């Protein structure tokens, strides 16, 4: 697959502290990439700002659609849309004036621009806000307006710093409907504090830790590689050690643990449980619990010791 964004040994310092360290990887065109990381999110924001062109990397190179981010900056400007965490709209202008002002510097096809603009106003339910001065609008509405401004230009790469921050539940749903409709049509890189959102909207998740990418895959593969998709807990009236040793050897069983009369194990699918059950004929079972793992469980399991995420 063709690369949309390529990092080559990119490092970044912020106030003397390394927030990104030697990043080398690529992001495929038209893929959706979610990023999460340490609670101190400076590295994530910096990562997004570098892609957006707000900051240049201190070390290394970044290529966007094959263009060097510094040497061929002018070629890149029109390709990128950036929604920052905090809105950056001019408080003295109305929403419509703000969007028209910024978009007028891009020399884009006016007809297409207007068409996109009109469509996204409807999809994001912003028609009542367009003629209001932005200092009178809520932060959630401003976030949607910033998204409208960027989407109306039809960017090839959309960089979003917490795209639904400050929004109410209805607006979050609207915004994700719009973004999901764009899946596979543009490269989308976003950060979010909502793990549920990330779980439902990604082709790939990058987990940052200490300025480096610690995990890089989609959730399914990460779960498969790290802990399986399910956790099964069986509570026995009494479990014999010999039975436990038999269960330990069941095909595809992950991390079986026996504690008192309770057996806990993980597996990629429910067939593991069925295989275990065949060994339990004549054994009294008090309770069975099946838990599906989520991103949160993966992060907790991986970083529990370090207090990350």
């Amino acid at each position, binding site marked *: 697959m063709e690369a949309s964004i390529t990092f080559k040994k990119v490092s970044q310092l912020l106030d003397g502290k390394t927030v990104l360290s030697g990043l080398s990887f690529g992001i495929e065109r038209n893929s959706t990439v979610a990023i999460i990381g340490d609670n101190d999110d400076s590295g994530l924001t910096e990562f997004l700002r570098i892609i957006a062109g707000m900051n240049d990397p201190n070390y290394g190179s970044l290529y966007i659609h094959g263009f060097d981010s510094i040497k061929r900056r002018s070629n890149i400007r029109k390709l990128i849309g950036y929604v920052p965490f905090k809105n950056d*709209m001019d408080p003295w202008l109305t929403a419509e004036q703000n969007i028209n*002002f910024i978009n007028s510097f891009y020399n884009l096809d006016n007809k297409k621009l207007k068409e996109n603009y009109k469509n996204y106003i409807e999809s994001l339910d912003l028609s009542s806000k367009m003629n209001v001065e932005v200092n009178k609008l809520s932060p959630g509405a401003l976030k949607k307006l910033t998204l409208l401004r960027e989407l109306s230009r039809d960017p090839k790469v959309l960089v979003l710093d917490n795209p639904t921050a400050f929004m109410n539940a209805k607006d979050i749903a609207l915004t994700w409907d719009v973004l999901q409709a764009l899946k596979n049509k543009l490269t989308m890189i976003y950060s979010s504090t909502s793990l549920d959102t990330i779980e439902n909207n990604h082709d790939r998740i990058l987990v940052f830790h200490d300025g480096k990418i610690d995990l890089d895959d989609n959730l399914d593969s990460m779960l498969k590689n790290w802990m399986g998709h399910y956790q099964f807990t069986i509570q026995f009236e009494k479990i014999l050690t010999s039975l436990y040793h038999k269960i330990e050897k069941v095909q595809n069983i992950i991390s079986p643990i026996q504690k008192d009369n309770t057996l806990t194990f993980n597996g990629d699918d429910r067939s593991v449980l069925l295989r275990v059950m065949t060994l339990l004929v004549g054994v009294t079972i008090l309770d069975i619990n099946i838990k599906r793992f989520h991103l949160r469980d993966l992060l907790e399991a991986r970083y529990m010791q370090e207090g990350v995420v």
Partner: protein
Amino acid sequence: MISTLLTRRIWIIKNRLFSTLGLLLILPIFLNVVINLPFKRMVVSPLWDVPHEQWIYPGLTIIVIVMMMIPSVYRDLFELRIHGKLLPSLSLTPISKPLYLYNFVLTIIIESIVYTIIVMVVYSILLAPDFSIVDYLIMFPYLLLFIALGANILISLSLIVNKTTLYNLLMLTFFLFIVFASATVIEFEYFPKVIGNIIRYLPTGQIMHSMRMALFSDVINWLIILASIVTILLWIYINGLLFTKRLQK
């Protein structure tokens, strides 16, 4: 680009039409009451041998224009920069940053020209100076030079200073400098000789002095005009560099 920036200025004025127009009409009247009327009683002999109203007319006009210019520059550069509004998005557009700044200066000058015409009309009614059309035509280019210089000073301050308190203090100092140390309402002769000589040779003082020379003595000092233009162009260039540097991070 200039049309986009002018459109933005028009939007801002339109969004606050009554307060802008009100200020534009009230300020000249207010300054006439608090500056012109008491000064007229203080000045015993006419300066440059012309009636006081004629002498003070260009100075008062400049003060009002500078007062109108301060909020515009404050709003469009300092406040937006400090609060991280508009300029970050602007820095991501394909336009050149110095070019944006040059066009911004031009926009401020064009806006100030409109204000100047309105203020000149108001003061022509209030002060009734004995100026001919030619006098107004002579005065106008000098006012433009002063506006361009003032705009550049304000832009530099807006780009250099990071603290609102310091910025406000500097704005106040700049305003007092324009009122009291640029020969707008106080002639250089009223200052102690050494101080008078210093401020006489500052660009603002030079423009005011040569304007009065042209108006009241029919002497046009081309060297000062040329020097002022060069100073302004250099200043615009430096502001362009400053603006680029500020927007980079």
